[in-house]
């Protein structure tokens, strides 16, 4: 019997083993390696040379890195904070009984199926000075804006795309959370005379907290890794105003072949994600992991 139990332990481990190996080789090892490489000078041609903290020093002295870091933080918060609220509003809207709900949901959710590159080319076209967006704001008497070619608006234009694309996805997640709240809670509160807002703040929101937490963490991670939009839509410009950290890492590594410096920037990006995630988990969950 004991031998059989041990056998089962081995079987269970063997089921997990291939996936574990893959994650070790393609997640854990690269993370350690990125950290290690960040102390070396490496250009893919000559062998790596240990340089201590020089790469970090170079980043610290590089205004472009500071700008990319700042852009990443602005983009991340600019995209995810509106997403938290707008996606919740969307989910609350769609959770009401209404005519043609399946079609309305389909209409809202279909952007989830659209690939990023398609979204990028559509929006780039719409942001054209003579494009759809300027035409629409023209109806309200607003002058043409050079969305993508002005430093003041380029990053904001990319943020709007990010929000637009993220809302349906997080809306679905919220909707699932809303639907898992038992209906009798609301009915009981209604009998006790609680109004819509009281019910939302005292019943819906506390019970939705795990979902909210999940949305916050995922939205932060998925927005900080934006790369395609700055590359295809603005090329990081104008004047570096849409250069975000992943773009900086790509450029440093694969345009200038400064692998060590790119690895140092990756390490800093990791630390940024790690602490932000930790911060929100701690603040919202008060303690346990």
């Amino acid at each position, binding site marked *: 019997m004991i031998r059989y139990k041990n056998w*089962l*332990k081995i*079987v*269970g481990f063997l*089921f*997990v083993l*291939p*996936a*574990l190996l*893959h*994650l070790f*080789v*393609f*997640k854990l090892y690269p*993370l350690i*390696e*990125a950290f290690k*490489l960040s102390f070396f000078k490496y250009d893919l041609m000559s062998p790596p040379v240990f340089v201590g903290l020089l790469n970090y020093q170079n980043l610290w002295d590089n205004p472009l890195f500071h700008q990319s870091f700042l852009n990443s933080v602005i983009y991340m918060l600019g995209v995810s904070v509106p997403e938290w609220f707008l996606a919740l509003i969307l989910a609350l*809207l769609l959770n009401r009984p*209404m005519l043609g709900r399946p079609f*309305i*949901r389909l*209409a*809202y*959710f*279909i952007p*989830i*199926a659209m*690939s*990023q*590159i*398609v979204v990028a*080319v*559509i*929006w780039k*076209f*719409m942001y*054209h000075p003579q494009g*759809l967006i300027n*035409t629409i704001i023209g109806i309200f008497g607003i002058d043409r804006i050079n969305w993508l070619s002005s430093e003041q608006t380029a990053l904001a234009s990319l943020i709007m795309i990010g929000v*637009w694309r993220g809302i349906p*996805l997080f809306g679905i*997640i*919220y909707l*699932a959370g809303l639907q*898992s709240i038992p209906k009798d809670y609301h009915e009981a509160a209604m009998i006790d005379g609680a109004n819509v807002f009281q019910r939302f703040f005292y019943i819906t929101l506390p019970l939705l907290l795990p979902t909210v*937490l999940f949305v916050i963490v995922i939205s932060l*991670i*998925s927005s900080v*890794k934006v790369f*395609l939009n700055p590359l*295809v839509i603005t090329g990081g410009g104008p004047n570096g105003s849409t250069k975000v950290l*992943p773009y900086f*890492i*790509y450029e440093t590594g694969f345009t200038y072949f400064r692998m060590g410096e790119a690895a140092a920037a*990756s390490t800093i*990006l*990791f630390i940024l*994600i*790690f602490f932000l995630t930790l911060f929100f988990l701690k603040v919202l969950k008060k303690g346990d992991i």
Partner: protein
Amino acid sequence: MKASSFLRLLLSLLTILGICITLIPFFWMFSTSLKTSSEVFDLPIRWLPSIFQWQNYPLSFSRAAFDVYFKNSLITGIIVTTSNLVFCSLAGYGLAKFDFPLRNFFFKFILCTLMLPLEIILIPTFLIVQQLDLLNTLFGLMLPLVIDGFGIFMMRQFIKDIPNSLIEAARLDGCSEFGIFWRIILPNCKPALGALALLVFRDNWDQFLWPFILASKDALKTFPLGLAQMESVDSTAYQEIMALAVVGIIPMAILFIFFQKAFVRGIALSGLKD
């Protein structure tokens, strides 16, 4: 009573406004893809072209080897999806129904890998694939993507709810451990497998950064790379770029419309906490 019907009207209007904001970009893409180049920026704007220019579609495809790009995207998508289904359900079963040392540690480790997007580990991953001599190969294009922690997490959550009695009964009947996985677990996971397949295929159809770094040979490019390249080379041929964009969304749009429920369930399942 009056106030509540006013509120209802307001909410309906809000819903409709939201639909417009969501769908107008797609409508605009489709309409532009059928215009002549001189109609593209006509003012006042034309919501519909005067004559549908269907030839934009074959024209746009002839600009580069888009048939090859399309094929590459399909092949890698199908293989990566299949491999994720196999390995994630195996690992999910192991984590959900077996007890072995370090199991919870491994599970936490897998959850932590979800915080590690490719963007962070891009440089070392590239160096690993380079050392394996897999640059500019289809295999190298797929290797880092064939297993993802998200799938393992999702399958584990689902398999946990399958009753243990099913597994015990099969064991008593003398079914092999792999046989249990194959004949009991997998058939009971169909909804989760379907949802996972859709999400993985979508992510892969979307994958840009990795092929962008890895595939410099034209014969290895995927559809998103081709479209980005077209965007930078022929950036004024808007009607053709939009035609390509329309073609690019067709596979996912079809899957989504037919399997909307599975899609939504998959995304919802990913949001449900332990």
